[in-house]
């Protein structure tokens, strides 16, 4: 049973990683308290549903479509809700993001009702894979793990090796200096948002497929968990995101599997872990803390 629980934990962990990858871009790198990440994740899932149901796309086209829609949504949110707030206290971004989240969640309730819906048939059948006699896994979960790894690899490459990636970090640290280097700061931030949002959408689609359900408020808890993962790992650290997600997933699985009569439930445990780790390592597992006086 322990082995199966670990497998559960790892898959759950990668699910968190997948959701958190996009947030690593916006929150981890740009340091933007982007509370609407969960909403974009939801928008992505619905876009895929619309794509499959109404535009008759196949699953992979729908996935790309969802990523494109989410990228657009992310860009618009950044442009209209966050950009005017640059230079003001970050908390305003937080509030604006909460506002966007409330707005979109309710808009989607009008468009699609607040009821959970099944993810449309898209030719992806869930099949069960028996790893050993007592350990099993589904193919969709494998896709999630693969997508998580892929997203991370992409992010790593972008931040480490592309000029745009480095410019993103520079802009996050000093907008004015970045623009004095010839960086079109607005564009860089926009692109970062688009990538982050597209990744969120990919997560939304896969998770909706995995659980066969999507609904307008589906993003709120995953959004919070993603924050948890990003902070736990240390802002903007890619190994941190993986380790953070896995820690969360495994501990949640094990506590679900072996502990009963807990005074604190699963979602809260994630935060107990988070706070405990931050107390020991205030900048997160892989975060660096540089402040020179």
């Amino acid at each position, binding site marked *: 049973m322990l082995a199966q629980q670990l497998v559960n934990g790892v898959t759950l962990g990668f699910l968190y990683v997948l959701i958190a990858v996009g947030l690593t871009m916006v929150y981890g790198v740009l*340091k933007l*308290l982007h509370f609407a990440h969960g909403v974009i994740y939801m928008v992505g899932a619905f876009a895929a549903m619309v794509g499959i149901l109404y535009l008759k796309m196949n699953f992979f086209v729908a996935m790309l479509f969802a990523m494109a829609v989410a990228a657009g949504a992310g860009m618009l949110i950044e442009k*209209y*809700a966050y950009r*005017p*707030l*640059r*230079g*003001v*206290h*970050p*908390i*305003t971004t*937080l*509030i*604006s993001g*909460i*506002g*966007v*989240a*409330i*707005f*979109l*969640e*309710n*808009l989607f*309730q*009008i468009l699609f009702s607040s009821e959970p819906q099944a993810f449309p048939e898209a030719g992806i059948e869930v099949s069960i894979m028996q790893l050993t006699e007592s350990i099993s896994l589904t193919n969709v979960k494998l896709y999630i793990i693969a997508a998580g790894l892929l997203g991370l690899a992409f992010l790593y490459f972008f931040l480490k090796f592309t000029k745009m990636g480095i410019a993103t970090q520079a802009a*996050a*640290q*000093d*907008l*004015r200096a970045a*623009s004095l280097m010839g960086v079109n*700061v607005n564009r860089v931030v926009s692109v970062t948002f688009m990538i982050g949002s597209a990744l969120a959408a990919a997560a939304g689609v896969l998770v909706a497929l995995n659980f066969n359900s999507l609904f307008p408020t589906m993003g709120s808890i995953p959004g*919070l968990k993603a*924050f*948890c993962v990003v*902070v736990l790992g240390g*802002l903007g650290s890619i190994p941190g995101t993986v380790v953070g997600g896995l820690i969360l997933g495994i501990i949640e699985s094990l506590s679900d599997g072996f502990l009963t009569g*807990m*005074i*604190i*439930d699963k*979602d*809260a445990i*994630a*935060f*107990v872990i*988070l*706070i405990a780790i*931050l*107390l020991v390592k*205030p*900048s*997160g597992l892989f975060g660096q*803390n540089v*402040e020179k*006086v």
Partner: protein
Amino acid sequence: MDAILNPYYVDIVIFWIIYILLGLGLNLITGYAGQVSLGHAAFFGIGAYSSAILTVTYGVNPWISMIVSIGITFVVSAVLGLPSLRVREDFLAITTLGLGLIVQSFFKNAAITGGAFGIDSIPAPSIFGIELKNAGYLILSTVVMLLAIYALKKMTGSRIGRAWRTIREDETMAQAMGIHTTYYKVLAFAIGGAYAGLAGSLFAHKVSFISAESFGFSVSATVLSMVVLGGLGSIRGTIFGVTLLYFLPEIFRIFEFDLIDPKYLDIYKMMLYGLLMVLVMRFKPKGLFGNFGIKRSQFRFFRKAKAKEGGHVA
């Protein structure tokens, strides 16, 4: 007197006062001391549960339970605040959010809080044997609110207020200026928490039934929005922000709108709510009565500078 006052309107005002108290406490923590908190509902809940447990389980007089629960939240907020304050400042939003979830989860599972069943039949305080209801409770809440506002004004105008503002802007510098930053941060958490505890106590005795659902993240987020909308670091702002966001939904209840499909009325209401938050932030980023400094943030670009008259002689 109760006959004259429609209990519905009285209740509206009482819950408004409760939100103002919550807002004032949060404004102290976030607006004055600069410690972003997304877990304010936890302290609200601790106040409510303390009052409820003391009166229902231990049969303590409601007046005493109210006072004791302020004390309890003061201490508990300080203790709970401590670990969150040790972490990096930009993580505070997340750790306090977590703190809120942990505390709520405790309410939901612990035996002493009645677990999933909550606590009911919480008595209201009484004077000369008469239970304070509608009007009486209204007067009590109003007096409490005025005292709270007065105390906050005095505190923030003093040297302690100065210490808080310095910490808010630059902790390292504050330390070098001789300010015991941890102490003052914890103090802000404790006092802000006590305000929330007071609000919780008023809430419990008013509603008479409490359960964990009333103290969730959405309350924290709503109060934070109210405070930020009104303007961090401004008492007037808090009152205004609370009033705006609190009465917006209430207006939908008081007046009837024929124009929109009633089926979606409540959803439109929430959309408007969200939109309003975005718009106010966009056009008045410092809040409607904002007084909160531009933080040494990474995103300082076009700073709109305002200088008071009488400066620039050079």
